[in-house]
């Protein structure tokens, strides 16, 4: 009797599906990031976005190469595990987990901010409890949907992403066409240039607008011809997001507004970027800027808040789904206790992972919302954390988690280039130096080094400028490491070393499952040639 093989993930994700999978995650970031960066970096917001954007391009290229070479679900955590071993794989995965839990709270928070444009009762400043309860309700609702196995479909993601790209292109094109003044841009940059501290803070928050490229890698196993498609979808995603982020920043600094800007809290006139970056508005800056586009703003005022809210909700959901999925993958890989592998017998969903990490995100939400809910806490936060709270706090931690995991991904890329030169790379980051490493010809990626320096700089900026981030971020990593060591000790697994894996056969299997048969043949031929060379050298 023949034995049926294990069911595998179906390769049903098309190029547009792969792109929209990433876009529904990264595309929402600018809805949150724009206001935060304008509030911090003022007249240098465009430069802050440019700096973070250059680092993001390097990150994007690194992810593109790795996801095309190792098309497996797992993303950054898998690449680091494979390149640097178990403990670093754990730290990278744990940092991504932090990002996913923040993602849930931050995007649900911002989703309600956008809705408050149409429903003022949800505005955080006058109605903090209503805002908090709706955010909490959304998070619990998303957790419940994921618990019973309901997810938004790829088709829905694709539809919303397409609609958003058209909408953002229209806002930016018409904004530059009818309301942009280069003289005003230069004037704003000259008169509102931030202090170095504010600039560093702006850069560290600008990276928030570029987080989520991971999603394309996470879906690599389900993507058709991943080695060919992922480089295209990733590159397109990088370019699209970069164009949007830089355009919004420049437009916000150099735009003649259609409607007058309200006076600030002290009754003084304020510029557009000041209005967008204040604490009342920084969670919904894109909707407000869209409103200021001549003619189009009248229509945009109604649909952009709704579109933004939907995109942010999808992004929040990807946090719920992503955190449970990565915890499940880490547990299967022996990095987290097996309880995170536990699947609900009826719904077939990783319920323990879902409940634990949604609970963590609820704790983060409570910590972020406390000062607006209780004036005594506001005073305490002012004393301890420089008055930071709410969306700033979530943004801080989001930047910390992203910068940490991205740093490891760059090192993993360099390590894998040296230790695994035989794996065929259909996409390779340009600018490489040929080297010989352990008897094999390899290529050292210069851009990975530059990207690593850039992301470490952002990590340092985050630690310097965010009082909560520099405490909560490292504490999260230390807590994770304690759990990791306890678990590994109990299981009798090596604490600092990795347990042995057969990467060669695993890579052949990965390429076979991905349907990249030509690459599989090439890899097998590379292995054979390498073995023959080594045998000859030994003789």
């Amino acid at each position, binding site marked *: 009797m023949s034995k049926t093989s294990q069911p595998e993930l179906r390769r049903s994700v098309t190029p547009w599906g792969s792109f929209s999978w990433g876009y529904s995650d990264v595309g929402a970031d600018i809805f949150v990031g724009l206001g935060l960066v304008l509030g911090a970096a003022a007249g240098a917001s465009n430069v802050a976005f440019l700096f973070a954007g250059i680092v993001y391009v390097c990150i994007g290229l690194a992810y593109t190469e790795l996801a095309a070479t190792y098309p497996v679900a797992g993303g950054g955590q898998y690449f680091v595990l494979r390149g640097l071993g178990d403990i670093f794989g754990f730290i990278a995965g744990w940092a991504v987990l932090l990002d996913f839990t923040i993602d849930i709270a931050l995007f649900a928070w911002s989703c309600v901010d956008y809705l408050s444009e149409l429903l003022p009762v949800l505005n955080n400043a006058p109605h903090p409890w209503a805002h908090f309860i709706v955010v909490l309700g959304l998070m619990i609702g998303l957790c419940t949907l994921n618990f019973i196995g309901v997810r938004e479909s790829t088709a829905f993601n694709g539809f919303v992403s397409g609609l958003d790209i058209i909408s953002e292109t229209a806002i930016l094109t*018409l904004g530059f066409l009818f309301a942009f003044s280069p003289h005003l841009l230069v004037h704003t940059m000259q008169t509102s240039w931030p202090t170095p501290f504010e600039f560093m803070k702006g850069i560290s928050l600008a990276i928030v607008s570029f987080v989520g490229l991971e999603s394309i890698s996470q879906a690599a196993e389900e993507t058709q011809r991943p080695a*060919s498609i992922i480089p295209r979808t990733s590159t397109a995603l990088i370019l*699209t997001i970069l164009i949007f982020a830089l355009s919004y920043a420049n437009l916000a600094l150099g735009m003649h507004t259609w409607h007058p800007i309200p006076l600030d809290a002290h009754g003084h006139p304020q510029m557009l970027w000041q209005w967008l970056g204040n604490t009342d508005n920084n969670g919904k800056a894109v909707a407000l800027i869209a409103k200021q586009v001549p003619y189009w703003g009248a229509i945009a005022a109604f649909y952009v808040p709704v579109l933004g809210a939907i995109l942010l909700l999808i992004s929040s959901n990807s946090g719920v789904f992503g955190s449970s999925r990565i915890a499940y993958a880490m547990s299967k890989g022996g990095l987290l206790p097996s309880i995170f592998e536990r699947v609900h017998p009826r719904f077939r969903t990783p319920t323990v992972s879902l409940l634990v990490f949604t609970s963590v995100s609820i704790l983060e939400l409570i910590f972020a919302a406390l000062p607006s809910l209780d004036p005594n806490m506001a005073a305490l936060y002012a004393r301890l954390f420089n008055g930071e709270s709410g969306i700033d706090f979530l943004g801080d931690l989001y930047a910390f988690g992203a910068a940490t995991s991205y740093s490891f991904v760059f090192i993993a890329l360099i390590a894998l280039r040296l230790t695994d030169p035989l794996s065929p790379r259909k996409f390779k980051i340009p600018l490489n130096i040929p080297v010989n490493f352990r008897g094999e010809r390899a290529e050292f990626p210069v851009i990975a080094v530059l990207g690593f320096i850039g992301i470490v700089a952002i990590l340092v900026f985050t630690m310097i400028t965010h009082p909560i981030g520099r405490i909560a971020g490292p504490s999260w990593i230390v807590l994770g490491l304690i759990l990791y060591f306890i678990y590994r000790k109990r299981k009798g697994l090596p604490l600092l070393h990795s347990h042995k894996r057969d990467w060669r056969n695993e890579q052949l299997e990965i390429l076979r499952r991905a349907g990249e048969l030509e690459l599989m043949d090439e890899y097998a031929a590379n292995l054979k040639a390498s073995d023959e060379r080594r045998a000859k050298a030994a003789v």
Partner: protein
Amino acid sequence: MIYHNDAVTITVAGVVIAAVIMVAIVATLWWMLHPPASFVQKLAREAETELERMVGSVVVVFSQEIESNHMMALAAKLASGEKSELLAIYVIEVPYTLPPDAAMPVEERAALDALGAAETIATNTDVSVRTDIIKARSTKQAVLDLAKREKANLIVLGSFREGKYSGAPLGRTIEEIAADAKCDVLIGVEGKHGTLLYEEPGSPASP
């Protein structure tokens, strides 16, 4: 500055940046959605092109020996997908003992039934079909002559009728047409015990 009033400000820089944003986004997405084909995709595309060519004009053959109803259903589905011309013919072999245009009421009645069923299949599949009854001394020659005249790309044949086995596994007429035809020939033989996907209860292969 090109134009400025209280409502709008149009500048050269603004126009250029707006155009660059629009072109860059459209070009990026277009490039992303048009990846080069892989070897496997090229093979699939060649096969699809071949199929399009193959089913440009399809002749489905019925006769006393050839039972083609199930193949007519398949040909109609092919034709509906590929928008090809469909022609169903019933060939009545006239023995040499009779004149070529001799009346053969029993065979003609069977032909009307077969072609009526063919038309119904075509209607149900939403394709148009031409039908014709041909009297000839040899089914093979009639089919090959018609295929040549109609510039057929594909001849579709069913299996031999039960009790008409004449020494060739598929039926002599079917094998001769397949051997001598200048175009592609599709032959469908019905399994004795259901299909590969479904086995009739009680058949030797069923559990």
